């Protein structure tokens, strides 16, 4: 089993959710809405949940893993492109295709994901250029690391708004932006976290920071989203940094390029395109 096989097999479970919700993290679109001091945590989160998403998108991302040993930082980058399309045929929520372009060793390695409405697991296939073969693969647990990064699949997929209770606990300034500070506590217990603190831009309803706490109430990770750019009617998060407080490791996601609403055809999400560069 070669390295590309290994790397991509680490990227399995909930991948379509990942891709869908990576949109939430990388290309989340918030509609600016006037709010007042009586906003509750739930109200703010509902506003965030009322997302207008593009029908399809193509996003090129640079993913950098940074390790810190004895004060010396070392980094390793990957570049990947995610193509996704929403479906309204009653069978699929979304189909997506993810392809690595760097490092060159894994160039062309790609995933195809069909997010079925009625299925517990997504349908997923992996293309390994060295084998010239498309493999059907199984999704992994949500708690697992996404491809050795500091993001777990759960971090990338997010949670349904009904899965947590929310409490507005104050206001704060993060990345030079005035934010609401919300405490999210899980109602639906199938999560690795005991709580999350979420900072939301007061004016634009953009997520700026999340602090993750484990079930022992220890802070384990921090996600910072310092930059947003508006492309047409959509807000794009251009940079995300996830810090693992336990091992000093961090993962940076940088959006290199994003294209919305290209009118992608359904045949883009087939094995043929999975193999196509």
């Amino acid at each position, binding site marked *: *089993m070669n390295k590309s096989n290994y790397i991509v097999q680490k990227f399995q479970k909930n991948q379509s959710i990942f891709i869908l919700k990576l949109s939430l993290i990388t290309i989340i679109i918030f509609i600016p809405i006037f709010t007042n001091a009586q906003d509750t945590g739930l109200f703010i989160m509902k506003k965030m949940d009322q997302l207008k998403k593009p029908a399809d998108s193509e996003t090129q991302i640079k993913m950098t893993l940074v390790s810190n040993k004895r004060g010396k930082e070392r980094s390793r980058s990957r570049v990947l492109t995610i193509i996704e399309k929403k479906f309204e045929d009653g069978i699929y929520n979304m189909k997506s295709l993810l392809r690595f372009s760097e490092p060159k060793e894994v160039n062309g390695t790609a995933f195809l994901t069909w997010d079925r409405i009625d299925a517990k697991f997504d349908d997923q296939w992996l293309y390994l250029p060295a084998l010239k073969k498309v493999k059907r693969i199984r999704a992994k647990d949500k708690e697992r690391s996404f491809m050795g990064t500091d993001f777990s699949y759960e971090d990338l997929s997010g949670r349904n708004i009904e899965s947590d209770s929310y409490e507005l606990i104050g206001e704060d300034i993060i990345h030079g932006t005035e934010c609401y500070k919300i405490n999210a506590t899980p109602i639906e217990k199938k999560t690795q976290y005991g709580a999350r603190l979420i900072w939301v831009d007061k004016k634009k309803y953009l997520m700026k920071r999340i602090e993750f706490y484990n079930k022992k109430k220890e802070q384990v990770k921090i996600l910072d989203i310092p930059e947003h750019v508006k492309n047409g009617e959509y807000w794009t998060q251009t940079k995300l940094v996830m810090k693992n407080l336990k091992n000093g490791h961090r993962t940076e996601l940088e959006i290199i390029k994003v294209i919305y609403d290209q009118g992608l055809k359904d045949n883009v999400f087939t094995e043929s395109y999975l193999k196509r560069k």
Partner: protein
Amino acid sequence: MKIFKKLTFFISISFTIAQINYSGEVTAKSMNRISNNSEINLPYRILSFKLGYTLGQLDINTVTGIEYRNNTSKSNYVLREAYLAYYPEWGEIKLGKQIHAWGSVDGNNPTDNINPYDYYYLFMAGAGRKIGVISLSSKIYFGNSHLEGIFIPKYQKNRFPYGEEDFPLSIPSKPKIKYPVKNEFEFGFRFQTTIGDGDLGLSIFKGNDRAPSVNAANVFWEVEGGPPSLESLLGYRETLVRGLDFVTFFGDFTVRSELALFKSKTPILNLHIIKSPLSLYEFQQDISYSQYVIQIEYTTNSDIILSGQLIGNSVQNENYEWYHVTSSELVDFPYPEFQPGMGNPIAMFSELALLLNSTGVLMDDRLELKGNMMINLDEKGNMFSGSIGYSPWINWKLESTITKFIGDKDDLENTFTIMEDFSNITFNIIYNF
């Protein structure tokens, strides 16, 4: 002149809006025997280069390589693939020299018989050990299923390292391939559908064996009334392969499996090509055999991938006879040992084998560790392999692999005993671009 201008304009526009992509790998390799540190002199691909041109729904792809021998410094250019691909909304059409991949297990696929194997690269995984064939292929999608058809106008056989002293498997000196195949045209179809959480594939392929087998023999009696001496003349059997493959999941385990049923028949000799029929006896063989692979995969919490393959093959039914080509008189000549001419290459030296693999990556993908083991369950024989790869800089990798074969001391004909001398340590410096 107008046409020329239009053509120039069209070509200019094409190159402006088209995308050209390329990638490749440069490898420097050394391979030495563990026993005495002597160099194993076999060729390897020092350069592999992929070049693609995309214009809308049309692609042109080429894969070329340079094969190199360290001992002689001789190199050899190889065009491994060159094909045109078109992607209409309903599927794909590809025409040219291509490498195909059928089946569900990771390598050693019994249902994957479209391309012949290059035995110099037998120990490589995947497409690296296949030879491209000129073919027309098409895939049609409907819902969560697809149907693929492949047509090969000119049959192509395996590349065997005849006369290579350092090649580990016992391949005789280059045999006389006396008789060409009866029908060069080959075809296959594969249907795949998604059922529940898994995939199911059904396939059929009709072609000619990739490896030669006995087709006839010149027979001499050195002593009148004594035992006959046979000079085997080889040809290629016609073979029909029916395949079944599937992938399914049980909890955290992935199960992949393939079964191929082969029906193989020696072609009847064409009397027009026979020059001296008086001493010639024809061998007619009609044989059914099967090969299967069951693969189970599991990924640990620390992202170590463990997988195992059980590989088996057996003969279900066989009929054969020797007869004189002109008189048709049946004779009682010995039955040559059956060798499958298609399917899983491991079937060539084991009827039942277990392969175990483990892979792990550490240090943000800088360090890769692999362990492999092959246990021959048919008779004595094991292979162990351990590999460490380190990437000091992006796109660079240093890799070392140690491979050890252990055979049966009491059986010098045992394949693994023969391969003991091939136990080796390999160093690779790889640059990807």
